[in-house]
């Protein structure tokens, strides 16, 4: 899809900026409870970083770091983390996503448990959003023809 053209400048810039973009996205996710941002925004920035990598370095380089299958697994894990924390609060006798009740199993005060619970939910949301955006972009970019599916289709 992407030609092996010699776009040295954009490639080199993407190479330099890519680790910083991903680190910044993780910062947005992890500090969601006392600065703007949170799971959804952080996940979108993560996915934007991967989009930049696909556009500049081609599909193969990106597949080496994260394949579509792994992205599918990660999206399920993200939803599971979110739902799991909510259900755990239900089991411990509170409402759905009532983080204060988590203090019984985390052995901390309810305030700290609330902070940790929000952090966990945000990580789950970020993983799910990132993986789903990544899958959507791959489906558009390859026009639905993934080479991983070739063996099964025939």
């Amino acid at each position, binding site marked *: 899809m992407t030609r092996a053209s010699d*776009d040295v*400048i*954009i490639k080199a*810039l993407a190479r*330099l*900026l890519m680790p910083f973009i991903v680190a910044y996205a993780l910062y947005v996710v992890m500090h969601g409870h006392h600065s703007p941002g949170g799971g959804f925004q952080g996940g979108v920035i993560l996915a934007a970083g991967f989009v930049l990598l696909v556009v500049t370095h081609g599909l193969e380089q990106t597949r080496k770091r994260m394949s579509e299958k792994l992205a599918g697994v990660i999206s399920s894990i993200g939803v599971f983390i979110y739902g799991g924390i909510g259900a755990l609060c239900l089991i411990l006798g509170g409402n759905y996503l009532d983080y204060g009740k988590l203090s019984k199993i985390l052995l901390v005060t309810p305030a700290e448990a609330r902070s940790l619970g929000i952090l966990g939910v945000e990580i789950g949301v970020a993983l799910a959003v990132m993986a789903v955006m990544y899958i959507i972009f791959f489906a558009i970019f390859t026009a639905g023809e993934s080479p991983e599916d070739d063996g099964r289709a025939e």
Partner: protein
Amino acid sequence: MLVKDVISILFMLAGFFFFTTATLGLLRLPDFYARLHATGKGDTLAVLLSLVGLAVYHGFSLTSAKIVFIAVFMFLAQPTATHAISRAAFRCQIQPWTVAKGREK
């Protein structure tokens, strides 16, 4: 009024002046490539000057370090974005405006 404020105001005004010239260039120049001259150079320096002005006003702290980081990022990214757009035009065989072409019209 403090010395810091005066320096900050000077930087901001210089940045605003270069933003204005960049915008006028974007509107007035005759051709796509020539317009990129205005935005690619003008916006880089204007953002740099404005960010330095804000950092001076805010004083020395972690926030001004972040502002300097944005300045470095813009310094790298703005010429690259300009190059990306102009390369797309060049690969699609769009010819630049020349004086001879301007006279014909």
